[in-house]
């Protein structure tokens, strides 16, 4: 499966993954600074965690 996967999916460019991560991080940051509901602010930190995960996976390849 991984042989097949590395042949099929090896094409997503690192720049795109990093940009996705950066945009998610920026949106999470904007939400954290602009929202006033504590729970939504926590949700925004979760959004920033997602961005970190995407960046780590992108660099890990």
């Amino acid at each position, binding site marked *: 499966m*991984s042989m097949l996967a590395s042949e099929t999916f090896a094409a997503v460019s690192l720049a795109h993954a990093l940009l996705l991560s950066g945009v998610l991080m920026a949106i999470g940051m904007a939400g954290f600074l602009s929202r006033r509901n504590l729970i939504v602010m926590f949700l925004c930190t*979760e959004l920033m965690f997602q961005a970190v995960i995407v960046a780590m*996976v992108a660099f890990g390849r």
Partner: protein
Amino acid sequence: MDAILPYIATLIAAIGLLLMLIARPGPARVGGGVVGLAGLAWLFVQAGALSGGVEDVVADVLFLIFALVAIAAAVQMIVQQRPVYSALFFVLVVMSVCGAMVMLEAFFMAFALVIVYAGAILVTYMFVLMLAQQASDSDSEGEIPSYDRISRDPVSAVFVATLFMAIVVAATFSGLSDLAPAADGQARLDADVALLNSLPEQVRRDVLSTGVDVVLPESMRGTVSAQDGELRFTGVDSVGSKVAVPVSPPGNTSHVGWSLVAMFPVSLELAGVILLMAMFGAVVLARREVEHAEEALAKATGRDDSEFSESKEDSE
């Protein structure tokens, strides 16, 4: 001039986000969304030209679709006035990020994200939201409270986010070529061979399932090697002649599990201990609550404590 284009795209996207944050629901907000998505799409197109042609267009296009859905849902999440909708849009973000993960070959990560985030954490959030809303909605029926309706200083928030995004764009567009090249096929194959040789049981099962006549040695270590770009188990059959059986490469989960156990055992144990402590804490806290409730019940029903203490002694 070309160097400045990504920053212009970032600025357009930021203006779109700002429009969505300050405008009331209606055409202005939709227009902001369109402007923001256009800026982002332009940014991604420029980044695509940066890496000099992609090998597999389908995977890249799928990744871009997932990325745009994730970003649109994330914007909706911070723009929505009702926190419940925010949480639901966050589920959409997690789902599309998982799709992007699959495109990045991180299958285990994708499934773990679905189970942990969409399955567990978001349900907890929804519980908290429902319970908190009940309390705050009792005074104003159906009205969205002012702290959800009016956002706190969206201009400076978008300014900070744009500054951050500009740094990311600068790093991506100028520094990406300085990175070391990714591991090529040979390095991956060598890593697979090393991993399979440290997982003898998996190789044994794999070879047995092929049904080839082969005598498996006591120690399976070092019996897998890469030949002509394929992984093969080399052994001896019952007659005594050499035989090479193709074995399947280790899957994504095998890699994750092996690197957890072999490379980060201390972190794994620490995480386990912390989780155990959290479980103890939950049990202790919950138990105390129940005792209070029983005492309150006893007081409310007017029963004296002697019955309780007797029954306790009996049970002990």
